[in-house]
């Protein structure tokens, strides 16, 4: 799915050049559940933004099904995000004036297949909350709306930036279970950023990023089940 070669990224802050990513090489296959681990400021989020087409200012090659993102113009990049990518953020980023149903509808509008919103909400356990506004939901419920909004687009890859970072352990478990099911049932590639090393045991590939470089890539033959994770 993704072939990443020599990916670098630097920010200029006055005279100081801050090298965030330093020549990353990585292959990502369709249907993989990848966890990217690393300390704060290691470049995880920047890496994810580049793969998701949010950040286009980088050096190196990022090929998505043999198409180099670096060569995409703005229109092609919009189409790339529209057809292939969904994001799940730690801060949920729901539209506060839209109901749960309408927030999911924002995702549905972009998909060709137009899956049923009610079915998706049923799947994430929010069917009875569909007319509520985000301000009336708990953190876990908000994140489930964000997941529903991501799934309904029918993307090839979902990027999750600390999706459980603001949640308690039981809620986080529900969210992770939804992500795992989505990965398994729909064969959607999930790329997860987290600080939580335990969560890495759920995925089949773990990438350690330290100081803008890949420190190690660990392929997990038999990922643990959710029940075995210590939160």
């Amino acid at each position: 799915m993704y072939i990443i070669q020599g990916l670098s990224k630097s920010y200029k802050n006055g005279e100081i050049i801050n090298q965030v990513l330093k020549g990353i090489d990585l292959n990502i296959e369709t249907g993989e559940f990848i966890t990217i681990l690393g300390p704060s400021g290691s470049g995880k989020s920047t890496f994810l933004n580049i793969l998701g087409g949010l950040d286009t200012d980088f050096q190196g090659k990022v090929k998505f099904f043999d198409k180099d993102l670096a060569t995409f113009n703005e229109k092609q990049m919009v189409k790339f995000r529209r057809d292939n990518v969904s994001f799940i953020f730690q801060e949920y980023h729901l539209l506060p004036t839209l109901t749960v149903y309408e927030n999911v509808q924002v995702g549905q509008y972009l998909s060709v297949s137009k899956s049923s919103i009610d079915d998706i909400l049923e799947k994430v356990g929010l069917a009875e909350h569909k007319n509520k506004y985000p301000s009336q939901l708990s953190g876990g419920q908000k994140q489930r709306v964000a997941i529903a909004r991501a799934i309904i687009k029918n993307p090839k890859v979902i990027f999750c930036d600390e999706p459980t970072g603001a949640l308690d352990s039981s809620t986080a478990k529900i969210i992770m279970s939804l992500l795992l099911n989505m990965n398994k049932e729909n064969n959607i590639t999930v790329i997860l950023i987290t600080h939580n090393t335990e969560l890495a045991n759920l995925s089949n590939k773990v990438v350690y990023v330290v100081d803008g470089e890949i420190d190690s890539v660990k392929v997990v033959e038999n990922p643990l089940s959710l029940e075995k994770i210590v939160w």
Partner: protein
Amino acid sequence: MLIKHCLKYLFKSNKFLFFSINIMILITSFMAFTLLITNNNLETVNENNQALKQEDFQFLPKLSKNDINIFASQHQISLEEIEEKNFNQILFDHQISYRDIYGDKISGLQKNYGFISEIQQSKFFEVNGNNFRVVKHNEKINKFFFVKGEMAAEDNEIVIDINTAKKKDLNIGSSFIIKEKEYIVSGIAGFPGLINPNMSDTGLKIYKPATSVIVSFNDKQYNALNEKEKIYYAGVWTSQKPQEIPSAEVEYLLEKNDNTEINILDLKISMNKMIIGVTVTLLLSIVGIMLAMVLIKMIQDNLKTYGVLKGMGYKNYELIFSFSPTALLLILPVSLGILLSSLMNNTIFGVMNNDLLAPYPNKSMDMFFSVSVVSIFTIGVLAFSFLIIFLFLRKNSINLIRETSQAKNNLIKRVLLKLFARKKFLSNLRNKFIFRNLFVFCLVIFSGFALGVQILMSMGMSGFPDQMANSFEKQYKYEYKSILNDKVNITNVKDAQGYFVRNLKIDSKNNNSDDISLIALDSNEKNQYIHFYDYETNKNITDQLSNGVIINKWFANKHNLKVGDKLTVYDNQKNNDVTIAGINLDLQGNELYTSQTYYEDNFLEKVNFYSGFYSKDMPIMDKGEIRQTIVQKEQYEAIKLNFENYKIISGAMLLLGMLLGGILLSISIYIAIKTGEKNILLLKSMGYTNSEINKVSIIGYVYPLLIGIAISIPYFILLSKLLFGELSKSANFFLPMQTSLVNILTVTGFSLLFFALVAIVYMMKIKKSTSFQKLLAEQL
């Protein structure tokens, strides 16, 4: 520290908003203070003129047969010569001065009616396209205002007007050549009695200020000039209560109020006050609402921060006082506005009043007044902002943190959303975006409203000079209007229409007495030179002259008269009721027109002679019989030129309206985008195209803009009917503020164009926006 946060919020985080508001307040204060200073100066000019004994009225005494016999015997002139020749010609041929003829008569009039008087003489000629008016020096009335130097004593000396001195860069001792003769400038003067000095000898044609020159020589040089001369007596009342001089005593009498030349200053002052009233009120209301909205935005943006600070132990008053820098929103631009208006007022006054030949008093705004105004407004703004902040900060810290941006849709939003529910997803999403922030929604409505009112007003005003001129051109189809000196038979004048004037009084509905001129027109259908058109319908109503009197719109508005009303007119002897048969297009003047037959039937008095007549051809009569012949074209030009300043004012207002409306609209869209930036970025990250995002986040605001324009139309109609109607009563003209379909379409078209321009700028901004970090960053 907290004050620093507020300063940073204004200057750094919201610099666009801060500077936009500052510009708006700067323009408003500049405009307000310029108008106030101008008004101050116009009134000072008026006061100066009073001090220089500006005339109260003009007149020429009427000589009785006995007076003429005495005059003839005194100067050994035969009565046949007096019958045959023009009176002025007789005086010239026999080297007799006006004082010699009128001397005794004038003394009697002065004593009987309580006034002082002085003869006023001026001669006219043209050199190289410049219109010269040579004014004879006055001792008592309409005295010259010497800015520099003194009256011409020697034969080669000349006094010139201040405008010419400025235009030609002349000073005392400079050389000035007229008709190849060189003069030395001995004085530079203003001419207060001749407020509009650019009049021709007929008193109607107004020369362009750029080409007119007013000079004065010594008496010897003046008398030696063989040019057209205008002579009249100027009077100033000495008694508190002026007495009415009966028409039997004077050949003609022109009161200050009816004198177009002198009236111009009063007209300017009343016009200026009208503009101050309307514009400043409108601008202040715009600025007031803008300030309130900005304050609310400031508070909403900082609510979470203040919730946290409150949680940390900060007290309410500490948080409230941290908003003190909001005073800068007012102090900086108002001070700058005052400074700019003080610096520029001299130039602006010169441009706007180049037809006045009085020196500019250069009175600037009183420092104490300026400081007081700024202080009062500042205290007001601070008190207002503190009150709003206090209302918001009453809640406990946790509620302040929670409430930020997560509030569910309130009842108003829900009703609006239901009302504007759309089937198409994007249209629905657009509505959700628009109603997301009712503050921005109202702001856009308000910008449409402000833009609409300003443009409608300036368009309404710009049509005023043309409307005046057009109504004149449409109604008065004669080429010449001749005013007769005596009872003359006009049947010899080809195709003439005679008229008879009686000066009467009326009592208005408010019990105010008012002078009117009742003009009875010769009912000659063939030679009907005056046509009347209904003010509302534009229908020809000339035939209504036989059913009563036709009045003009200003007079009708001033006395609350409508068609069918009865009006009591009276002179010293008796009262008569007349019926209002029509209201015509004219916008000023207290002339009431009727037909000769209606007059004769109603006043039971036969019209045996005419006061004057209208004709197509230049009348050929003995000049002694005609006092004055007015050329219609000259009169038309005079009216047009008189109101030319309105075009400048309306142009300035249009610019101002565009600027303020534009700034307001830009601020609205800016706030809309700023507050919805995260939503926009979210949609962008999901793969929404720029056109979809534009549709959802910007284009939808065209609806509140149109709502604002729609509200501005009835508001403006109401404003023009009520406010301008009332102001017209105290002014001496009716300022029509018509709202035609063309005006409405222009306003709408212009507003949409402006919206498109602003929208394009912000669409480009959205297109370029890739700052997804903002979306990903956790906010406090």
